[in-house]
């Protein structure tokens, strides 16, 4: 009985891993494209190097901001972080250099040929900075309203709620099917099937809420992180639907999903963990 089942599903499952692998390749291309892309955001943080000075000598920026140094002096200078996080190399007169600042805190930098040229960036974590700006206006309201439930209306409320479902259902779907195979329990497989289906249904909404949040936030999010996060999230939504369809196929023929399917779900799980860490990095800074 068991034997005939596994024989039955062998020819039927062979196209699915191919589809899955193709999909993984597509995902890898998407992610690497997104990661390699320099954000088109024009830097509003410009520091002019003039007459042996960095102007302004101290600048407040947010994590993920692009900062540009323009050398308007007659000498070549460098922009060298004292802790080694960035070094421009020589910037010739008339040219400029830019970098994305990810490290938070007070970053002192100097010019290597001219150690008397010193300045610093004060980098605030993204959300911390925004909370700080709004703190004055909203402090009383938030302290009173914090425990009272209100229906979610904003994308920054929807996305985290939906993320909870996406994050919980996938590992449970995986675990149920894994344990089902190990202990040969049909009930666990049924649970695994339905949780994968729920995962496929709910994740597109999670993804949509994420895009909505990103659009309402405009340029406030760390450029590199958000590009990877938004495309990986969209890819995950599509991937989960394919996995659910694949899983449904097993259900029609036999109760037990193949190991290939389980490995595929596990890889998807790893991608989801990475995705979650990116989201966390954006919300809580580094």
């Amino acid at each position: 009985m068991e034997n005939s089942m596994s024989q039955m599903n062998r020819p039927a499952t062979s196209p699915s891993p191919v589809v899955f692998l193709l999909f993984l390749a597509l995902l890898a291309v998407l992610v690497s494209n997104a990661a390699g892309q320099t954000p088109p955001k024009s830097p509003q943080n410009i520091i002019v190097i003039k007459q042996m000075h960095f102007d302004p000598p101290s600048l407040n920026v947010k994590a993920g901001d692009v900062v540009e140094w323009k050398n308007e002096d007659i000498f070549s200078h460098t922009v060298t972080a004292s802790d080694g996080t960035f070094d421009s190399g020589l910037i010739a007169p008339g040219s400029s250099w830019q970098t994305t600042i990810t490290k938070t805190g007070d970053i002192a930098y100097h010019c290597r040929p001219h150690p008397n040229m010193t300045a610093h960036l004060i980098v605030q974590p993204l959300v911390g900075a925004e909370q700080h700006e709004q703190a004055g206006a909203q402090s009383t309201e938030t302290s009173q309203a914090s425990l009272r439930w209100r229906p979610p209306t904003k994308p920054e409320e929807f996305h985290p709620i939906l993320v909870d479902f996406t994050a919980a259902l996938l590992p449970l779907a995986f675990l149920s099917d894994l344990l089902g195979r190990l202990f040969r329990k049909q009930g666990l497989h049924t649970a695994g099937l339905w949780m994968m289906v729920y995962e496929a249904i709910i994740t597109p909404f999670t993804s949509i809420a994420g895009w909505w949040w990103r659009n309402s936030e405009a340029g406030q999010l760390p450029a590199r992180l958000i590009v990877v996060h938004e495309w990986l999230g969209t890819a995950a939504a599509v991937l989960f639907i394919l996995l659910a369809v694949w899983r449904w196929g097993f259900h029609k023929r036999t109760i037990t999903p193949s190991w290939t399917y389980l490995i595929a779900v596990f890889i998807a799980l790893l991608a989801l963990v990475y995705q979650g860490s990116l989201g966390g990095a954006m919300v809580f800074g580094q």
Partner: protein
Amino acid sequence: MKKLVSTVLGMAMVCALGSLAHAQAPTDPQIVGIVQTANRIDIEMARLALKKTTDPQVKDFANEMISDHTALEKSVNDLAAKLGVKEETSSTAQQLKQQALQERRKLNTLKGKSFDREYASHEVAYHQTVIDAATKTLIPDAQNAQLKSALQGAAPVLQGHMQHAQQLVQSLQGGGSGF
């Protein structure tokens, strides 16, 4: 010992430039002559260093001296042309050249680490001398306001070179004895 020699040389240069204060104040064409002589000396010294050194730090420093002093020289040339000032030589400029010649002779006899150390400590002393001359004599004596402000503008870059040379001296002292 070498440090002592370069200190003495440095002091000699201070005396050479300091004597200006007591002698007749230099004219604007003479000031331009002194500044350009000082620039050319440092460029020549850096070219010598590039020929003789193998230390990447010393090479970087020498390249910066060539680049910065060439830029300074050009900006002074442009300003002088604009103001219609033709550079003139003076006893101070001659003494600077004389001392540079002595230093070159000395550097020519040295090799490796000892060359690097002598070059670096000479650059500290040399920039200190030029800064002192600029602040005590050349800037106060400059008649033309644009020339005066150009000299004031050059002070920070000389200060930067001096600090960089000091760092170089220290780092050459640090890991040097083993080589």
